């Protein structure tokens, strides 16, 4: 078929659901009006480890409006069939709500109170008396016993280090971070006989559907999950957390639809987090900065009952060229909730370490940090010998250095002052491995010339509604106004999780496929239709523009979808589309890249760090929706500022409680902390990646940001901070 003209794709459109959102008409999970819904509030464990010895619910049950109190003493046994999907960690056994008396972490759900009003349920929850046999929890990553490591090796890293002219041995610590989306997690569950419907905050309706069907042992098609709007996620909605099961259980037990909304505090207890790490990196290079060896040893948190892993090893294997690499990644089981991927998972952690260390190396041997990176740029993926699909980091450096004014950076730390403030510039490179998994979509073109595309998908904020409609509009040859994309329902064709920078790639490619098929059907209908002006024209010579099929190069000869379908008595055309996922075996090594630049000011006396401006330059393939990509990039930089300077979930190791489980004490950047942020995307596409040529933008935008800031702090102050977040006390 003739390639379609590009009109919507690449246009800086505002989000199509923007008006719904700003007028409050977009319905989020807890806002759906489900007839007769009652309210559920979870009672959180008040100890960090131990056993529940008794639960006294009498006072709660006596409170007016309270319908039921469900806990391990009275809950039915739930099937909890194995579920290797739904983003449950492959190793371990998921938390089974109210199925035993064990407390595995502080704040674990130990009971749920269901009442006719939210107030009664909340008050009832405070009246439930839980007695425990408490044990001392183990929650300190640096004190606990790690598991056996996952290893990687090539060459002989120890020998490589020994013979290196320049050696660095650095240990970094990264705090635990919580996703903290604006919308709290919430679920409304309703049973109609043996069929379960849930309205849920989730980044993956399919995953939630699968989990609920296995927990309750229902056929998959008996569970429907609806989630049209998600008020931020950053990964927290990638898994079906226990509270979703609690809501469904409470609804079944009370025979009423049940609404359950986590409090902000419970968001720190009942959903995951970016695990804290201790990461020791040893680097060896020659005197010109050519790397020869690296040894990475990383210890990361997981829970006592599940083995959570993330992609923290990949960057160390492929990012820079060197013959010798050894890695050991150890999980440290703790009495905590299970972590979960958070924006730029693994890579955002590893990049802080690797990119800080590269800055240290550049300083040690006295060359520019960008030049050091250029000297170590690999020509292929040295972990597997595959060629890159696209890897345009050199261009990222060139464009970034030019646009940011890198030449103004003084190579000498602590040499630039602005009143009480020391200023400095820093940069870091970033890499992310976007997932490519099978996805499906369905498109229907109606006789009135409008089209609807559907896929399970999700839109937690990046603009899925808009960007998918842009793809569909161009592929169908329609205007944006005549195309609607629907998402967030398990009845729609299945897609992979909305995370890991997969949505544009996988869902977008499936949408493209379905739209191409529909367009082809229309074209074939026209060329075979004797009454069509396009009769007899080779199908490959026909394009569609604004709903009108015509001969390429001869717009006068053609007709509209409406006329074509009406004349042929067709109410609609439709097609299913699919994307098969990454090719097997892999032909390319496929990553998204960035270079991030930061200027900071540090009040040397008071220890305060303020970011003055940042620039991200991205090699992320084709950008479908530039305005929304900007929102992503700026948001990623904001997340990185938080990771670098503010965000830190604090645990009291005496009893395992999270001390700062609220947004007053867990600090995220506010407007005043995020000044001049700018994003640039290298033009072009990566056609080896997927049919759309996109590499995804949502994750890569946070990778490297923390290192760029830390490197700028070093440039400003001469102080190397190897612990995140960078606080005043570290700089005093």
């Amino acid at each position, binding site marked *: 078929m003739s390639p379609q003209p590009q009109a919507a794709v690449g246009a800086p459109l505002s989000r199509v659901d923007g008006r719904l959102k700003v007028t409050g008409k977009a319905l989020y999970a807890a806002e759906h009006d489900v007839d007769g819904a009652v309210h559920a509030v979870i009672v959180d464990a*008040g100890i960090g480890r131990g056993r529940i010895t008794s639960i006294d619910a009498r006072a709660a049950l006596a409170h007016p409006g309270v319908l039921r109190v469900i806990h391990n003493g009275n809950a039915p046994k739930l099937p909890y069939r194995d579920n290797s999907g739904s983003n449950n960690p492959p190793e371990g056994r998921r938390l089974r709500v109210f199925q035993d008396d064990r407390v595995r972490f502080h704040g674990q759900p130990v009971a749920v109170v269901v009442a006719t009003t939210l*107030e009664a349920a*909340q*008050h009832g929850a*405070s009246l439930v008396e839980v007695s425990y046999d408490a044990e001392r929890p183990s929650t300190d990553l640096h004190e606990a016993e790690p598991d056996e490591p996952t290893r990687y090796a090539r060459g002989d890293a120890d020998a490589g280090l020994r013979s290196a002219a320049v050696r660095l041995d650095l240990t970094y610590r990264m705090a635990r971070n919580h996703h903290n989306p604006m919308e709290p997690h919430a679920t409304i569950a309703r049973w109609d006989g043996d069929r379960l419907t849930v309205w849920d905050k989730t980044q993956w309706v399919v995953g939630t559907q699968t989990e609920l069907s296995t927990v309750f042992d229902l056929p998959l098609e008996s569970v429907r999950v609806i989630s049209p709007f998600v008020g931020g996620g950053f990964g927290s909605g990638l898994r079906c957390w226990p509270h979703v099961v609690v809501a469904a259980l409470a609804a079944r037990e009370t025979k009423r639809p049940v609404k359950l909304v986590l409090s902000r505090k419970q968001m720190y207890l009942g959903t995951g987090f970016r695990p804290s790490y201790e990461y020791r990196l040893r680097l060896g290079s020659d005197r010109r900065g050519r790397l020869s060896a690296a040894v990475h040893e990383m210890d990361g948190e997981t829970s006592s009952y599940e083995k959570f892993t993330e992609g923290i090893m990949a960057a160390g294997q492929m990012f820079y060229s060197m013959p010798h690499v050894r890695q050991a990644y150890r999980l440290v089981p703790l009495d905590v909730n299970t972590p979960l991927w958070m924006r730029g998972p693994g890579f955002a952690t590893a990049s802080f370490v690797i990119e800080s260390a590269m800055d240290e190396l550049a300083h040690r041997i006295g060359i520019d940090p960008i030049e050091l990176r250029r000297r170590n740029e690999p020509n292929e993926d040295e972990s597997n010998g595959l060629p890159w699909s696209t890897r345009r980091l050199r261009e990222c450096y060139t464009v970034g250095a030019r646009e940011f004014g890198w030449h103004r950076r003084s190579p000498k730390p602590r040499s630039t002052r602005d009143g*009480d403030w020391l200023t400095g510039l820093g940069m870091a490179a970033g890499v992310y491995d976007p997932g490519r998994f099978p996805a499906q979509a369905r498109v229907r073109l109606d006789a009135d010339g409008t089209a609807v595309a559907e896929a399970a998908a999700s839109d937690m904020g990046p603009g899925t509604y808009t960007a998918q409609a842009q793809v569909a509009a161009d592929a169908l040859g329609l205007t944006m106004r005549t195309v609607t994309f629907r998402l967030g329902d398990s009845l729609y064709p299945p897609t992979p999780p909305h995370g890991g920078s997969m949505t544009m790639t996988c869902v977008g490619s499936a949408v493209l496929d379905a739209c191409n098929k529909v367009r082809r059907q229309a074209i074939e209908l026209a060329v075979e239709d004797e009454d069509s002006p396009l009769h007899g024209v080779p199908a490959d010579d026909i394009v569609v523009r604004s709903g009108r099929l015509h001969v390429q190069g001869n717009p006068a000869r053609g007709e509209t979808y409406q006329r074509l379908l009406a004349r042929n008595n067709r109410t609609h055309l439709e097609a299913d589309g699919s994307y098969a996922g990454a090719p097997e075996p892999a032909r390319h090594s496929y990553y998204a890249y960035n270079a991030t630049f930061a200027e900071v000011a540090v009040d040397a*006396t*008071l*220890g*305060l760090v*303020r970011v003055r401006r940042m620039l991200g330059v991205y090699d992320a393939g084709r950008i479908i929706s530039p305005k929304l990509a900007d929102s992503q990039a700026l948001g990623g930089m904001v997340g990185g500022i938080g990771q670098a*300077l*503010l965000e830190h979930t*604090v645990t*009291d190791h*005496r009893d395992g*409680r999270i*001390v*700062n489980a*609220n947004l*007053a*004490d867990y*600090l995220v*950047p*506010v*407007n*005043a*902390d995020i000044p001049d942020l700018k994003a640039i995307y290298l033009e072009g596409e990566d056609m080896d990646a997927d049919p759309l040529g996109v590499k995804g933008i949502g994750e890569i935008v946070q990778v490297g940001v923390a290192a760029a800031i830390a490197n700028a702090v070093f440039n400003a102050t001469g102080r190397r901070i190897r612990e995140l977040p960078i*606080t*005043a*006390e570290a700089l*005093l």
Partner: protein
Amino acid sequence: MHPFAYTRVSDTREALGAGRRGGRYIAGGTTLVDLMRETVERPETLVDISGLPLREVTATERGGLRIGALVRMAEAAAHPKVRALYPVISQALELSASAQLRNMATIGGNIMQRTRCTYFRDVTADCNKREPGSGCAALHGHNRSHAILGASDHCVATHPSDVAVAFAALEATVHLLGPDGERRVPFAGFLLRPGSTPNREQALQTGELIQAVEIPAHPRPLKSGYLKVRDRQSYEFALTSAAVALHLRGGVIREARVAAGGVGTVPWKLPAVEKHLVGERPSEALWAAAAAKAADGARPLQHNRFKVDLLSRTVERQLRIVGGTR
């Protein structure tokens, strides 16, 4: 939230009556409602006093200012007289909370606000302030934000207010109205150090109502300002803060009023710093020498040792900002 009764009063007599019967006064509610949601506060009856006529900022005969208890933080900060006479008050208010909160919260409520100690705010933790005799989880817990001055083994929580630091520096007076009539309490005696009774936070008797905060007249011109040091640029409580007011005549400091926030169990007046300044000419060396006394007597905890140094640096910086020289 525990169930409670709510009543709205329209004059002070009615308010005092309800207060005497054990009602808790509520105005902006920005702290109290928060704490009720966490079940830290469990009042039986709320007495809404926001309709009382305590919303005036007036000049006193002697040249000071009287700020009504129900004046909103935003109103007080923007008030021309406050801005002209006591920039330290305006600045402390404007560096507090968020615009939304400043539009709701009142001056009386501000000085009544309770600590941000996270153990106090978590009903499952030990806290002598919330539950006398239960212990202090912060003493050996996570105590980065806690007090280095004025603490006891029973409580190490800081007072969170910014404007109270300015009031302490300026030696304000709190005007109270109780069943037995009016009385005036010096600010230094209004907020109580924890000692062995951290649950008693103010020198208030049952049912007493704050009518106003009065700032005494200070010799003019009075240069003043507030510096707040915190991890993020806005919307965070102070790690350290300093309220400074200086009166100079003939190039010599004749009067100095200095207090610190974020470091004490109450706003921390710094008489040793003040004394060091009076009679001297501004200089970098003077600021440094005076500020060196700011943390006298500090007893840091495991996670807040940095505050000792940071406090002196904060005071020194603010002395320079207000007093000049550079």
